[in-house]
């Protein structure tokens, strides 16, 4: 996939590939976040936690808040994306997930060049990000 121009003197092929995908990814995430937030605050999609209820509970720590509103942890929010508040998590998750997709995109480029050290670094980073996203670290499914 060489649909971009680059000057290898200043930015490597991997760097340009990463940048191109990041540019698309963050814009999609941002746009969805804005659209879904509009649907949420203008009441087009009713929320799981009403706005008035939310204003009572956002003074609590996150764990107590979740108990009070019967909110999900981990990827449990996926079951609630028909609700306005949790629909917003799609845009937020794309913004939080675009980096790992960029890493996956450029990993083969490093591998093909025989750059074993950076291939290993990239695999390790992907594992770190997937671990963080998985919810295994204390999040768990609701």
């Amino acid at each position, binding site marked *: 996939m060489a649909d971009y121009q*680059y000057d290898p*003197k*200043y*930015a*490597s092929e*991997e*760097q*340009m590939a*990463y*940048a191109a995908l*990041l540019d698309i*990814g*963050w814009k999609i*995430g*941002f746009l969805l*976040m804005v659209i*879904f*937030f509009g649907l*949420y*605050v203008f009441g087009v999609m009713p929320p799981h936690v009403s*706005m*008035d209820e*939310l*204003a*009572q509970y*956002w*003074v609590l*720590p*996150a*764990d107590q*808040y*979740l108990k009070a509103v019967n*909110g*999900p*942890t981990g*990827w449990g929010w996926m079951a609630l994306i028909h609700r306005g*508040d949790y629909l*917003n*998590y799609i845009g*937020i998750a794309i*913004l*939080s*997930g*675009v*980096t790992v997709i960029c890493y996956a995109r*450029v990993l083969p480029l490093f591998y093909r060049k025989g750059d074993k*050290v*950076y291939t290993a*670094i*990239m695999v*390790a*980073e992907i594992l770190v*990000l997937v*671990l*963080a*996203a998985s*919810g295994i*670290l*204390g*999040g768990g499914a609701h």
Partner: protein
Amino acid sequence: MTRWMKRSWFWGLFLVLVLVAGEGWSAESAVASTVTPWWVWAAALFVTTFFLGIVAVLGGVGGGVLFVPIVGGFFFPFHLDFVRGAGLMVALAGALAAGPGLLKSGMANLRLAMPLALIASASAIVGAMMGLALPTNVVQTALGVTILGIVALMWSAKKSERPEVPKADALSSALGIHGVFLDAARNQEIDWKVHRTPTGLLMFVVIGIMAGMFGLGAGWANVPVLNLLMGAPLKVSVATSKFMLSIVDTSAAWVYLNKGAVLALVSVPSILGIMLGSLVGVRLLRRANASVVRKVVIGMLLLAGSRALMKGLGF
């Protein structure tokens, strides 16, 4: 009036401001939260972060470092968990938006960023878990100390446009961390390499933990380490630091998201406000007196850091 008396007056007034104003706001915040309509808070958050976005650009700092202590310390009723979650999203969104341009221009460097980001992002997970597990007053106190440390760093740290690196260290040579960038201001190509990479990696363990724990972003720490310690040129350091936030804050953001510490009604207006404010800030950059704005930023952080420390200590 002697200088000593003037200073006493200043610090006395400062302390009263921190104590009285902060205490009043925080004591009423829980009640105000239920009395004030939700949309007022969302609108106030948008307006506040819009101005923070302007000030952040003019003061040369990231939005996250202003957002967490100011939104977490004054006016707003949100628990610190949600403020830190939103702070991470603010820093992440800004870094993601800036990343493509910085990478394409060659100012940010992938080979420099990746090893450091790996260490920092793994540490940020630990920091995020610690931040959500520790009692709020402990995190609040540590946040106050950290913000005051940032104030000291901003006040005293020097920057080096092009640090001298006599010889690249063995690790950076093995990793092939070097590059050339076009300094458009001088229309000059600049070759660079780095040294003290092992120490830099260790520093990023600490930076990652703090980024995850406080949701501050970490440009304030990344840049001095990349520039002054490792010897990367200032522009490469600033750009690579900004890009690295998109990786480091991602790992911490997932922990906050999975633990339910990200509220759309807090995070989204903040992201929009900071990003729009940053756009306005960039336009004002040519006309603003950077030195004055930087002092204002330092003053704001001093106030917010002191307030966070006192809240944490129960004053």
